[in-house]
């Protein structure tokens, strides 16, 4: 092994050679940049305006001695408004848009995948083929037609927009399909012999088998929708979410913005996804996988 130091870690061995040192340094530098950005955001959200004006890099000091350490957060909650919608309103919009969209998207994918994986019926293979084709078709520029369709249906600027998530196909469909395929049919047959109907088999026998994956996919979809800004900007112009609201706010107030208060609003935006990630990171990092697209 020459000069290389060999470290044994569980059953997988790791050779700490020159390439690993380089990669470790790259990883460390990358981590430092991400952490720096987040710490910078958090520290500046506690600064007073004079502190911000003096230095962008120093740590906040005045907030500890002032009467209210969370004054910027209170101001953000009360003062940041877009077209009359404040942070509480944006938060509500973000919540229904994210939770509703994630629930509808995951639920209908689960239902579609279940019947396609476990039942033989006319059109079953067609649905699976459509799911594959839909994923590999490189469609460019159907945005105008989609926008026109949603406008014609009158579901823009309305929670009814969430129905667009009920297509039941896509990546989540394939994940659920693989999972239901992996569950033995014996469970279904045993339940049917005991007198359970189709719905009872689904809700009491099959659903519990995929619940962990369902929760993981829900959280991933929720975070994706929470962070989405293009969709709400286009389809929910009168109902800004936190992501679109703060973006518009920054653009509109670029020369006269109280940055510490704005940063406090930004922290409110990132708080929920970060808390969810902190709680479910293990689940998210281990439960997600994709297979091939043959078919």
């Amino acid at each position, binding site marked *: 092994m020459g000069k290389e130091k060999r470290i044994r*870690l569980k*059953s*997988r*061995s*790791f*050779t700490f050679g020159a390439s*690993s040192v380089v*990669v470790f340094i790259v*990883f460390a530098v*990358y*981590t430092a940049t*991400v952490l*720096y*950005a987040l710490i*910078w*955001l958090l520290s500046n959200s506690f600064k007073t305006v004079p502190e911000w004006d003096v230095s962008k*890099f120093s740590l906040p000091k005045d907030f500890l001695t002032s009467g209210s350490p969370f004054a910027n957060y209170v101001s953000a909650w009360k003062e940041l408004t877009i077209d009359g919608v404040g942070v509480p309103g944006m938060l509500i919009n973000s919540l229904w848009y994210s939770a509703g969209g994630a629930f509808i998207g995951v639920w*209908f994918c689960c*239902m*579609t995948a279940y*019947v396609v994986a476990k*039942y033989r*019926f006319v059109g079953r293979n067609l649905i699976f083929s459509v799911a594959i084709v*839909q*994923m*590999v*078709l*490189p469609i*460019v*520029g*159907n*945005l*105008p*037609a*989609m926008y026109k*369709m949603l406008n014609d*249906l009158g579901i823009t600027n309305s929670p009814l927009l969430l*129905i667009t998530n009920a*297509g039941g196909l896509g990546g989540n469909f394939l994940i659920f399909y693989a999972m239901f395929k992996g569950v033995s049919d014996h469970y279904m047959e045993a339940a049917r012999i005991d007198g359970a*109907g189709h719905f009872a088999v689904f809700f009491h026998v099959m659903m519990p088998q995929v619940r962990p994956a369902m929760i993981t996919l829900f959280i991933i979809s929720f*975070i994706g929708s929470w*962070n989405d*800004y*293009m969709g709400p900007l286009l389809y929910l112009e009168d109902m800004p979410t936190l992501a679109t609201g*703060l*973006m518009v706010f920054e653009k509109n107030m670029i020369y006269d913005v109280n940055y510490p208060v704005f940063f406090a609003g*930004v922290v409110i*935006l990132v708080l929920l*996804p*970060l808390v*969810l*990630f902190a709680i479910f990171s293990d689940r*998210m*990092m281990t439960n997600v*996988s*994709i*297979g*091939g*697209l*043959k078919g």
Partner: protein
Amino acid sequence: MEKPKKRINKNVVSKYVFVLSFLIVPIICFCVFYLAVNINSILLAFKVPAGEKWYYNFQYFLDVSSTVLPIFSSYLPNTLKFFAVECVLLLVSFVFSYFIYKKIPGYRFFRVMFFLPSVICATVLVMLYKKMIAVDGIVMVIYKMLTHAEAAPELLANSSTAMTVIMTYMLWVGFGPKILLIGGAMARLPEDVMEYGKLEGVGPIRELFTIILPMIWPTMSTMIIMIMTGIFTATGPILLFTEGAYNTTTLSYYIWTMVYGASSGSYPLASAVGLFFTCIGLPIVLIVRYICNRVDKGVSY
């Protein structure tokens, strides 16, 4: 003889009622929001207004290839640059995942840190990134210290550097999902195969490309196909960075600007641009998919 037949029919009917109850909403949504939308998109691409009537012809396609010159001189090259970033991200993520799989010290922490940007809204990340590279940001402070320059350059407000800045941002935030998927595939590899390779004296590079790659090929090929599917839709968050200024417009952003805040009169041209590039992209994706399937050695474990 009658009773069993009736029971079978009743079972079949109840089965189909159940299946239909589960599929009816997804089928309607698929027909309305996928089939109808895409059919409308195709029709829209040929729809030319003439007074109060509409005609269908190829006028917009002639516009795409002749009058809308920025598409080929600027928007398409920019789009392909972002596509190249996606390819680089996949390759680097594959190598990084290997080191995480081999449990480099602190691998759990690094894996979380790579995924962290995927959890944070792009609006926030772009804002933070812009603050870091601003003339008074940390990157420029370090730049001035190292080069002893008196003034820091405005990287985003410059046509020659703006694209590079946005592409660097894409590299900064883009590893997470790829490392997650590739790492997930590697984590499921059987340990004894790796041990056997080690006993045979297989080095890290050979292990990565001749043992691991074929075994996780279904995951890799899916990711390659997904990236190829986005060949003409690849884009960075142009809206958040420059709103298309400083020669940063991509095809996706161009189509977006034809819809957001624009009149419906611009929809047909946007649809024609989309259809034009869909027609070019389709054979490319099919060829790549065919090659990916041919390369697949069907390793099972």
